[in-house]
């Protein structure tokens, strides 16, 4: 029987899962993911996690709890950096330690460090370490690493083509899925935020699906090459320290340069540290840009946020955009 390794369906699942799935599969290890978020998972996480953590971190605790009895080990990489310029939010840096200190009776945790900014080897040192830990040869690890990189690239390619992360994951699994076409004449809305917050159907209250139902074209930060986002984020006098924050700020500047943009929505979590800065920067810079003619809405979500409230705000925002359009034509 092969080894089963748990991968919680939260945080980096939405940005890095294809790499690790392909890597582990090539090693002959079964990757078990937790089910998509449910109320029970979130409640479990919120009960166990430290009270002032943000909702994605609480959710991660919930997903680990959902996995812990089904797997031989849980993979919680310590995400430190992916490039020289930025690191991850401190909660990512301390994540394995937080999980270990908070949750009891866990299977072994594989918590190797991902610190790709330190040298030019990228994820390879982490992969080598994981293989050593599990007792696989370095040669096999290298092949698995190559395969993981290949899948990750395919994933990024799909995202650039307009797939949302969950759609791209399904496409990689071989399901026949096409990205939602951009309809000319519809509203173009940039929906920005951290992938683990925006694409988790439960904690984002399906904002993207709701907007699509209203006939809106959705633009996300994954649809722009990361190098461009990083370049644009340098417009700030000082670079933001965090990877995802740099992407969000870069995407804000990118979409502000597009002529046919109708509005920007920022989805953020209650108590998110980096977003306290990012949200204010977005608010001020969007106002300064184009004489403040781009409407901006920030939606802050916690475990109490209700569906109806968000519906009302989205409908009002979209109605307002439609009226503006009718008035300018």
């Amino acid at each position, binding site marked *: 029987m092969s080894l089963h390794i748990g991968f919680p369906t939260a945080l980096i699942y939405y940005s890095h899962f294809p790499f690790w799935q392909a890597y582990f599969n090539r090693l002959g290890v079964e990757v078990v993911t937790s089910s998509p978020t449910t109320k029970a998972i979130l409640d479990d996480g919120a009960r166990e996690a430290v009270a*002032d953590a943000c909702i994605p971190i609480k959710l991660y605790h919930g997903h680990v709890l959902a996995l812990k009895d089904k797997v031989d080990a849980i993979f919680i990489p310590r995400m430190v950096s992916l490039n020289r310029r930025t690191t991850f939010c401190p909660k990512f840096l*301390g994540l394995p330690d937080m999980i270990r*200190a908070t949750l009891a009776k866990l299977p072994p945790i594989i918590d190797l460090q991902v610190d790709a900014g330190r040298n030019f080897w990228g994820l390879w040192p982490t992969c080598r370490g994981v293989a050593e830990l599990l007792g696989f040869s370095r040669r096999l690890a290298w092949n698995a690493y190559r395969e993981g990189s290949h899948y990750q690239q395919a994933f990024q390619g799909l995202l650039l083509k307009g797939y949302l992360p969950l759609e791209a994951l399904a496409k990689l699994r071989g399901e026949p899925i096409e990205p939602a076409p951009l309809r000319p004449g519809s509203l173009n809305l940039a929906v920005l935020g951290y992938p683990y917050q925006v694409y988790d159907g439960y904690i984002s209250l399906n904002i993207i699906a709701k907007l699509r139902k209203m006939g809106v074209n959705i633009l996300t930060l994954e649809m722009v090459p990361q190098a461009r986002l990083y370049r644009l984020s340098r417009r700030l006098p*000082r670079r*933001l*320290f965090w990877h995802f924050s740099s992407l969000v700020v870069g995407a804000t500047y990118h979409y502000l340069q597009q002529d046919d943009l109708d509005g920007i929505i920022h989805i953020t979590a209650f108590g998110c540290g980096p977003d*306290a*800065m990012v949200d204010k920067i977005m608010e001020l810079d969007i106002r300064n840009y184009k004489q403040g003619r781009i409407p901006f809405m920030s939606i802050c979500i916690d475990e109490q946020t209700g569906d109806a409230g968000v519906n009302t705000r989205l409908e009002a925002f979209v109605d307002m955009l439609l009226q503006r359009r009718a008035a300018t034509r």
Partner: protein
Amino acid sequence: MKKVSFAHMGYSYLGFKQLVEDMGFEAIVPANPSPATLDLGVQYAPEFACIPFKTVLGTYLEVLNRGAEMIITSGGVGPCRAGLYGLLHEKILRNLGYNFEIFIFDPPLTGLVPFFWKLRRVLKETRLSWLAFIDVVRRAWAKLKLLDELEQMATATRPYEIKRGATTSAFNQCLEIVDRARSSKEIAAAGEECRQLLQSVPRDEERRPLRIGIVGEIYVLLEPFMNLDIEKTLGEMGVITNRSIYLTNYTTTDVLAHGTEDIRQIAHPYLNQFVGGHGQSSVGETILYARNGFDGVVQLAPFTCIPEIVAKSILPRVSRDFNIPVLSLTIDEQTGRAGVETRLEAFVDLLRQRREQMEARSNAALLPGY
């Protein structure tokens, strides 16, 4: 003369006042933060910024309204948000229509060249030579060191004082004496005078105060307004407090160097990664306090402070493993004095009972057969 101001952080404003004035600027000394300062900051700050951000923003608004033209502040290296505060403060204040210069000094080790360029630009404004500047810094540093020493003396004296509040009033006198001293000689003399003043507070040496360590984020630790005078409150309950951070020792270990190695080593089994701010130190210092036989630890964290959230989720386990009670206090603009005092009283009561129980048990072990 250019009017220069800075953030208010504990009693360090006396040192910075001297620094700025000796450099040839006019110092706009920030007033002690008050609820009005905080309200002002809260009004314009992002909702989830931590309370230091809001207080500092409020202070800047106050000093700018009093006519400050230049603000000197510190930066940071991340991943704690404090490193970006200068940037966002500037953006918010400019957006409100204020016109001023801001100099954000990052720790010199992260970039010596930009550090010296900025310093040169500041010095050019005052036509101060480098040599004279070094002397100015040395005297300000001596003052900051003296202030830290006096604060430590005051906390060590307070639990023994016979008349409640005597230490605090002596300490306030000390602040005035220190403020008047300017030259190295005067500062040394002021130091002597203040030490004597604090030593002459009538003390009851019979008492056996509890010992509590205080860990957490530097700004809430240093600024009595924000930690609701926790050291004074605990001191007057008869507790010796030991704070893990003082401005001058923090500057020498963490700003001018890469942190104290042993704290990281100690924290290693629980938090094996620098998480920015004081997250790792909070864990390490707690273990250190436990080893040194302290009765308990209080963690002070601003609401939404990321490194302290990481530490807070780990501390319960440290507390279990090392058998030391830990009280985590999260502070934001809604925190009330009475609520904090009640919690502190309960915590101190718990520690007293715990000590009595432990002593009773060890006495029983000493006298078998009774």
